[in-house]
C-alpha cells in the first residue's frame, strides 16, 4: 500500500497547544512520525538578557501556565545558587506546599485533557472542577489564578494567609475522596482501558537513552524523581515515596500521575506538620557575581533545569532553560511507531504536553 504523510495540527484538538505532528502511515498503521515545534517560540532566553534578575520572575511564570509556580521556583533556585543566597526554612516549607499544590493542579489539568482526548467528557468536567479548588488555594496565597509571581529570590513574597492550613487540609480531605471517584470513571471504564493498555510502549532503556523524564519515565518503571534523587528545598526532610508503574504504556503513565496526586497530598500534610515559624524571605543582592550556576527540579512534567551565567551586572549574561517536554516530544516517534492513527491522541495525551515550555 502507498505510504503517506498526515499532518496533525498545528492546531489539532489533541495537541494542547500549537504544534504539528507529522505521521507517516501505511494504511492505518504509523510507520514514522515527526514532531515539528517552534510555532510558539518567543525567544524567552534572549529576552531575559535584557531584564534585571527580579524582573524575570513573572516571565518565568509564563513558561508554562499549567505549572507556573514550579518554573518561577526553578528560576529563583538557580539565581539563589548563583548569588549564594540562603533561603529561610519556613520559606522552604511554604515552597514545598505550593509546589505540590501546583503539581496536583497540573496533573488535574492533564487528567481533564486526557479525558477529552479519549471521549470521557465526564472525566474532563470533574477534573476541571476539582482543579478550581487548588487554583483557589494558590490564588489565596498569591492573588493570581495561574501566573502567580509568588516566588522571590531569597524566599517567597509573603507568608501564607490566615486559615490557609485549615482550608488546604479540608481541600485535601475532600480531594482524596474525589480521586476514588475518578478511578470509577477512568479505571473502571472498559473503553479507557482498551485505549491505553498496551498502547504507546516506551521501554525503560529507550526512555533513559532518549532523556525522557518525569511521569513518562516513571511509567516505564524507572525509580527516578529529582525530588528524591537530587533533593532541593526540604524534600529530603520529608517522608514520601516515588510513584512508579512497570508497564511502560499509556495506562502506566496515567497511573503514575494518579499516584503522584495522592503522594502530593501526603507531602503537603507532612510539610504543614513540620513547618517552623520564622521569616519567609531574605534580602538578595541586585548584582550577581561573575560565575555560573545551575539548578534542577522535578516539574510536574519531568526534569527542569536552568543554567545561568552572571557577569557582575544586574542582568544575566545567559539563561538557559531545559524543559522536560522538549525532550519528551523528541522521543514520541518511538512511542508512536507500529500503532494506529486512532491511537495517536491516547499516546500524545499521555505525554502531558505544554508548548509554552517546549518552545520557550
Amino acid at each position, binding site marked *: 500500500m502507498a505510504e503517506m504523510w498526515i499532518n496533525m495540527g498545528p492546531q489539532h484538538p489533541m495537541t494542547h497547544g500549537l504544534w504539528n505532528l507529522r505521521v507517516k502511515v501505511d494504511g492505518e498503521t504509523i510507520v514514522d512520525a515527526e514532531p515539528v515545534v517552534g510555532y510558539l517560540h518567543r525567544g524567552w*532566553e534572549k529576552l531575559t538578557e535584557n531584564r534585571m534578575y527580579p524582573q524575570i520572575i513573572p516571565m518565568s511564570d509564563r513558561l508554562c501556565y499549567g505549572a507556573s509556580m514550579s518554573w518561577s521556583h526553578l528560576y529563583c533556585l538557580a539565581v539563589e545558587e548563583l548569588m549564594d543566597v540562603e533561603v529561610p526554612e519556613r520559606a522552604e516549607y511554604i515552597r514545598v506546599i505550593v509546589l505540590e499544590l501546583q503539581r496536583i493542579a497540573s496533573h488535574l489539568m492533564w487528567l481533564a485533557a486526557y479525558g477529552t482526548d479519549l471521549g470521557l467528557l465526564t472525566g474532563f468536567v470533574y477534573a476541571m472542577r476539582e482543579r478550581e479548588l487548588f487554583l483557589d488555594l494558590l490564588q489565596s496565597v498569591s492573588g493570581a489564578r495561574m501566573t502567580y509571581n509568588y516566588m522571590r529570590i531569597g524566599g517567597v513574597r509573603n507568608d501564607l494567609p490566615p486559615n490557609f492550613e485549615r482550608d488546604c487540609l479540608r481541600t485535601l480531605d475532600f480531594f482524596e475522596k474525589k480521586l476514588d471517584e475518578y478511578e470509577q470513571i477512568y479505571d473502571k471504564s472498559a473503553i479507557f482501558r482498551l485505549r491505553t493498555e498496551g498502547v504507546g510502549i516506551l521501554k*525503560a532503556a529507550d526512555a533513559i537513552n532518549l532523556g525522557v523524564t518525569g511521569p513518562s519515565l516513571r511509567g516505564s518503571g524507572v525509580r527516578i524523581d529529582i525530588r528524591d534523587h537530587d533533593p532541593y528545598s526540604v524534600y529530603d526532610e520529608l517522608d514520601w515515596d516515588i510513584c512508579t508503574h512497570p508497564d511502560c504504556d499509556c495506562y502506566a503513565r496515567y497511573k503514575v500521575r494518579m499516584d503522584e496526586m495522592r503522594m502530593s497530598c501526603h507531602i503537603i500534610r507532612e510539610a504543614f506538620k513540620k513547618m517552623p515559624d520564622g521569616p519567609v524571605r531574605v534580602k538578595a543582592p541586585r548584582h550577581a557575581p561573575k560565575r555560573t550556576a545551575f539548578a534542577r527540579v522535578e516539574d510536574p512534567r519531568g526534569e527542569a533545569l536552568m543554567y545561568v551565567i552572571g557577569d557582575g551586572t544586574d542582568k544575566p549574561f545567559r539563561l538557559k532553560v531545559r524543559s522536560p517536554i522538549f525532550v519528551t516530544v523528541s522521543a514520541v516517534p518511538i512511542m508512536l511507531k507500529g500503532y494506529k492513527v486512532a491511537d495517536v491522541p491516547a499516546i500524545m495525551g499521555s505525554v502531558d504536553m505544554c508548548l509554552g515550555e517546549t518552545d520557550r
Partner: protein
Amino acid sequence: MKEAGEHPTKKMSESDIVNAVRKEFPDGVTIGGLAPRRIFARADRFVFYKLCQFLKDQLSFEHVSCVTGVDRIDRFQVVYHISSYQNQCVLEITVDIPREEPEIDSITPLWGGANWHERETYDMFGIRFRNHPRLERIFLPEDAQYFPFRKDFKLRGT
C-alpha cells in the same frame, strides 16, 4: 534491562569519578570544582567525544540533562549537563570552541536525548555538531539567515 537507581554495581562518589576521569584523561580535561552531587569540568573539544564515551561506558552516566551554547564574544562555549542515575551526580562540562570554526562532535550517537538540544544550539548559535543525524533548524524557519542568540544579534527596542 537493569533498572536505573537499582543498578547492581557500586555507586561511585564524586571524587571517585574525578579520579577515574583524571587517570583516563591526563590532558585535555580540567576539573574545576566539586560540590555534593555536582562536578564541574572543562574539556578540550578534541578529547570531548572520547570523554563522553568513557563517561557513558565506564562511569554509567546515562542521561543528558542539557546541552546549550554560550556566546562569550571572543569564543563560543558549549555547556553539557550529563547526569548519572546510578551515581546520583551531575557533571557539567564546558567546552570552548573558536568563533571562526564553531564545530564540535555530536554526542547524539551516544545519548539520543542530546538530539534536539544540539539542534536547538545549532539553530540559535550556529554551532555545528559533527555526525549529528539531522542538524536542521528546529524553532526558526529553515531559510532564516541569522543566529539570534549570538550577542551581536540585537533585539529591537533595547
